């Protein structure tokens, strides 16, 4: 199935029709045991520990072992509710998700439209455009750190445009430090979005919009009424996946600013890292983690339905 469509249903129905016999089901279960065991030990157990820790006052610097930590009730959550820094990190992360996903989608659609027809060095262009997503994220962030250096090429280019020397410490400025971070994210992941959008567009039968054009529809009309609706399911998946991944943003921020200056670029992940591994407030961070888990799980439940329809 290389037509750019999503996984289809019939096989699954065939299984249902023939029906695995009971012993087969047991065998199938056993095949998943190694995976289940790993998830149990390294995901489920830690999650339970998070829930427990979040009601304690554990701080490793007190030299008490974690299992002897004192019960703290809802104190951590009460403190979190009034913590401007945590609230700021959550809102900032959501803003990063919305802005970068929207920009990625916009750029990707624009680019994909240019790649619908065949032209001379199209293959080469696609290869070059996909390069950013193959760079190790830490290295990409380092490259942007150099580009946005006070004496770096970005300021130089702005200086050329403004016709006078321009020096600006992007990463030290609370208002602007987020810009290079957003740009790393957009630079690195627009290629994926482009790849997905292009796949979606090419999945739309060419004859359909050619026919519309031949019948006198404007290209814009053909795009809006034929290509867009038919590729919408795939675009939805792309946007969902990018949103989920962007919500976790950490590497770029760690390399570029560590959440600074102050807390001006702190994402949820960076907030938790700083709280847990710089200030060693483990219990407090466990409470924050629990809230974030709940937030993500509720978001997941909201998007589960469209994803389920994809996968069956």
């Amino acid at each position, binding site marked *: 199935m290389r037509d*750019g*469509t999503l996984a289809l249903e019939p096989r699954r129905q065939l299984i249902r029709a023939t029906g695995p016999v009971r012993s087969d089901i047991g065998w199938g279960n056993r095949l998943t045991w190694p*995976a289940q065991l790993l998830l149990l030990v390294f995901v489920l157990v830690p999650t339970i520990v998070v829930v427990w*820790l979040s009601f304690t006052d554990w701080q490793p610097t007190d030299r008490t072992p974690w299992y002897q930590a004192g019960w703290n009730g809802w104190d951590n959550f009460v403190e979190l509710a009034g913590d401007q820094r945590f609230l700021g990190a959550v809102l900032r992360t959501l803003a990063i998700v919305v802005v970068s996903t929207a920009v990625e989608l916009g750029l990707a659609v624009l680019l994909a439209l240019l790649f619908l027809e065949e032209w001379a060095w199209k293959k080469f*262009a696609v290869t070059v455009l996909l390069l*950013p997503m193959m760079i190790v994220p830490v290295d990409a962030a380092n490259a942007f750190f150099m580009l946005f250096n006070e004496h770096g090429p970005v300021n130089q280019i702005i200086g050329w445009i403004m016709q006078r020397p321009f020096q600006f410490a992007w990463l030290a400025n609370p208002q602007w430090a987020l810009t290079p971070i957003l740009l790393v994210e957009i630079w690195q992941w627009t290629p994926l979005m482009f790849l997905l959008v292009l796949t979606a567009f090419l999945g739309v039968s060419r004859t359909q919009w050619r026919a519309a054009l031949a019948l006198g529809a404007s290209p814009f009309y053909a795009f809006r009424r034929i290509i867009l609706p038919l590729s919408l399911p795939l675009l939805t998946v792309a946007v969902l996946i990018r949103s989920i991944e962007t919500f976790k943003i950490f590497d770029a921020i760690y390399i570029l600013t560590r959440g600074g200056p102050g807390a001006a670029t702190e994402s949820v992940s960076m907030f938790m890292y700083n709280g847990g591994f710089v200030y060693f407030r483990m219990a407090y961070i466990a409470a924050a983690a629990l809230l974030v888990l709940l937030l993500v799980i509720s978001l997941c439940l909201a998007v*589960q339905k469209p994803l389920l329809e994809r996968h069956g």
Partner: protein
Amino acid sequence: MVNPHRTRLLAAFRRLIVLMAMGFALLPVFWLVSTSFKSYEEWASSPPHWLPQNPTLQNYRIVFAPEAARQFAAHQSGSLDYKVSGSAWSAFGNSALVATAATFLSVTFGTLAAYGISRFRGGGRGFAFRLLTVRMFPPIAVVVPMVVLFSLLRLTDTHLGLILAYTTFTLPFSVWMIRSFIEEVPIDLELAGRVHGYGRWQVFTLISLPLIRGGILATSLFVFILNWSEFLFALVLTSGHVVTVTLQVANYVSASSGKLYGVQAAMGTISTIPVILFGFLIQGHLARGLTLGAVHG
């Protein structure tokens, strides 16, 4: 209807936009590679030099030869910075070992689970989705208890610890990606195998596995890329012994002169080469991998 003049104008416009996009895509990579060949004075010179004026391999020598690193550190500040003085060989060794082992385990367990899920609904109805949620929440949310758990199991700062962590957190990719390949195999082939007297295990190893060989290879390379590029777990679950390449890049910082741009760029250039190679090898499967099998390119 088609105006040749307008068509040519459109084509020129398209070329312009594509060239601009390519420039944007290439600039950071170009800067990384260019900086890796610059001498110390040019790392952050003002105005910046786009191409090294005196191309040098010094940065690469600092990365790979401890002697060059020691000389450099002594020359710069008189004091030896332990992070700079370590060679990158061990980082490459650690990353290769951890990423390879974790990829092997992840793909092996992933293939078994994917087959069980796809053909026998193994693990129950919600299992595949429980796997997905592992990918959805930020890993940092479980990192605090993982640190606790790791010290309890004496896994902190060991290869085995990182391998297990990486295996677990790439399992969703392995399972969902391989599952999408398995579901492309007509189930009739397997049923035919059963009818002709193969057992379940024989059907799996003699019919299904050979048919999804390519998919397993693509998945392996994809998971290897993820493991090789991982940063957060390496940062939190190790403390100086098991240094991976991504940690080593961030390590090239000296107390006196801040980030060592050239050395970081050299290390970055080398460490990203395998990823680029593998990435282009599986270019056709990247969309499938990064969407966990939802999109077949």
